[in-house]
């Protein structure tokens, strides 16, 4: 299985990838992680490639061979779209990060609705308000854990919920475990809510 994680510096992409990879390895599954984080500063593009099971060969997911995208930011989701198979699930936190360049008119941050439409043209999009759910759980820094909850609930990962929770526990400070588990549950609930809402919406056209 090929999973792509995308966001900007400060989103916790690298840490999230490690949590999933460690959970997979604990379950005895082969894994590879490829990361690009360029400079350590905030706001730059960050992407990681996570390959689990028989796909765990080279560290890079080839074009349009990705089974899933966990995106922490809309423009970054769009940037990695070319790595996804048609119909692959995209879990998106729809909180944009608009940089200095856009404010100065050096580049133009696309309209978020338009980004969502373009993604929906080929992918099965689950959008979550992860930033706000994380704030609800206690802090914006747990946005990535909300996303992990949503990912887990989607049932697409070949990794159990318990293993993910154990991997989170191993990574966060003792005092923060409870809050993180709450964030995880809010993420799970977000997926169930999305599923319930989808029953009444037409399924995206994936025919072309």
């Amino acid at each position, binding site marked *: 299985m090929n999973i792509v994680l995308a966001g*900007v510096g*400060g989103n916790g992409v690298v840490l999230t990838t*490690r949590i999933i*990879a*460690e959970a997979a*390895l604990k379950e005895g599954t*082969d*894994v*590879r*992680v*490829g*990361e*690009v*984080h*360029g*400079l*350590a*500063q*905030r*706001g*730059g*593009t960050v992407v990681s490639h996570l390959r689990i099971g028989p796909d765990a*060969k*080279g*560290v*890079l997911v*080839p*074009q*349009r*061979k990705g089974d899933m995208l966990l995106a922490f930011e809309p*423009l970054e989701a*769009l*940037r990695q*779209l*070319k790595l996804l*198979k*048609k119909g692959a699930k995209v879990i998106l936190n729809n909180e944009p990060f*608009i*940089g*200095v*360049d*856009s*404010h*100065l008119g*050096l*580049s*133009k*941050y*696309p309209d978020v609705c*338009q*980004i969502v439409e*373009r*993604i929906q*043209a*080929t992918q099965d999009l689950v959008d979550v308000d992860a930033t706000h759910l994380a704030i609800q759980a206690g802090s*914006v820094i747990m946005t990535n854990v909300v996303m992990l909850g949503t990912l887990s609930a989607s049932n697409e990962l070949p990794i159990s919920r318990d293993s993910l929770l154990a991997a989170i526990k*191993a*990574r966060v*400070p003792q005092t923060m475990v409870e809050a993180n588990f709450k964030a995880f549950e809010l993420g799970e609930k977000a997926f169930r809510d999305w599923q319930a809402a989808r029953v009444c919406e037409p399924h995206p056209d994936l025919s*072309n």
Partner: protein
Amino acid sequence: MKGKGPLLGTAGEKVLMSGNEAVARGCLEAGVSVVTAYPGTPATNVVEALGEVAPDLGFWAEFSVNEAVAIEVAAGAAFSGVRAMMATKMLGVNLIADALTVVTVTGVRAGLVIVTADDPQQFSSQNAEDTRFYGMLAKAPVLEPADGQEAKDMAKYAFELSEQLELPVFLRITPRICHSSFPVELGELTKPKRDGKFVKDKKRFVMISTYSRPRQKLLREKMEKAKLINDQNRWNRIVDFQNGKQFPKGAVFNTFGIIASGLTYPYVEEVVEVLGLSARVLKLATTFPMPENLIGSFIRELDQVMIVEEGDNVTEMQVRALAQHRRLTARIIGKDDNILPWSGELNPDIVGDALGKVFGKKFREELTEPYVEAEKLIQPRIPALCAGCPHRASYFAIKEAIRKKGKGGSVMGDRGCYNQGAYEPLEGMDTCICMGASIAMASGVFHSGSSEPSLAVIGDGTFYHAGIPSLLNAVHNRSNITVLIFDNSITAMTGHQVNPGSGQNLMGRPAPFTNLKKVVEALGVEHVRVINSFDTKALVAAVMEEVDYDGPSVLISRSPCALVVERNLRKRKLKMPVAVVDVDKCTGCKVCMKKIGCPAFGWSQDPKPHMEVLSHCNGCGLCMQTCPFNAISIPGKKEGVLGMTIRKEVPK
């Protein structure tokens, strides 16, 4: 990350490790005694990880002031009979070349391993040089791992090879090894030796020409020996594929071959399997010197051989020469035929394109129309200095001063976080060539006869690394230049490593706190001042004065890195002050944004168009000085002095 991570795991355990951690672990398994490095992405964490565990395990680990020094410290240890490792990004190999090309002549008494991280995609480097050429130039063997397990195992083996040949050995890795993570099975740790002793032998270590010349023959013999050792290297492996299925070598017949060096092997394997190709593949781990017998017999049995390698055509050239030398007729293809690209890193799609061309198949999944449409919306992100970065304040002041003087002026830049200030809107530095170039280039601009003021900008880390000789040169050769040292007392760009101005060494122990002003004075600079980066008025006035002074002058613009300030505030559970915008006063003119380009600015239309301040503002206060309508303030703080007052509250 919690604790010391997987670095000290028990033997037999299988853990998830980055390539850098794997290399570090390999060194521990080899019982390394001395570790040196100068920071440089993507190699930095190899040594950062080792620095943390060095005091407990009882070996020496240091960040040296530059790479040239680092290799000399490491070589001194290896001359004294203990294993030493030096790590650098590839650009640092340019600096070690002077020592390296002689240390191969003397040879070493214990393993000396140089970990070099090349950056073919230029994620964070000024060029894309291929350090294998330095292996060839100096005659030092080069090893290239294909994954994390090999990175660990080959790091350990590199010491053995180094001792077998009495030569320094390169371990060449790239970001796809360094920053990727792999399951790695750990081996036993070895206790580091601490009983080094330098045994004199002038004919071997005093490399005046009398003693050096006769040793060239020995070096030649070592290369011949290395080729034979490499023929047997356990990571050089040949496998046969038939219709994408893997067989042991010789089990099936093939006429097409692939030589895949280092981390390109998994890409090749994936493409061959997915496309169901038939080919004999040589996975090459020893890229210099070539295992000539192994490669010779490999190509002898084939009609056509593709060379897959990242960087320049180093293996391809050698294989061509070997084929010619041994009168082998197989057609050799690769970069020379433009079947594989000359620049950038490889990936499975690029390797797939190349093999696809040969076999008339397609690996890369096309981007259909909706994907192409989506791609059109994508915008690049232009990097910006962090919110509260003192470099922004310094650039703001330099720009103001140059504008007020009205005589124009050039700012020769250097290498560090301040490179982000070259982008709009600051556009504060005009060159970035290599570490330390700024001051000497500003001298060059001055000596060219330019009538404009000649300025230089350099960070404290870079000044210690390579700026001191060029400042001395400016004094000696009377350059009329104005040098600004952006002193944030840390090497920020590569992830906050210590330097001689940090008061602490790599192992977390107290180190003498270098007095930068005294160093500059001692070099003979008569005009030196230390000014707080956020004291814009003082900085502007000082730049204007020093530009007029006839001789080299230095302004040390000092304020700690904003991320360090934030971290310290958080540790002390203090709240970060933030700027607020008075919506009534803000006209939405964006002058603040256009002047300083701070990423903590947002934009709101509600109830009318105005600037807003986002949560990651840390209250440096610079924006307050830019607003024509006094719409920005920091509650409870006085205008303009904010950056200074907060920073004084924070201990070093």
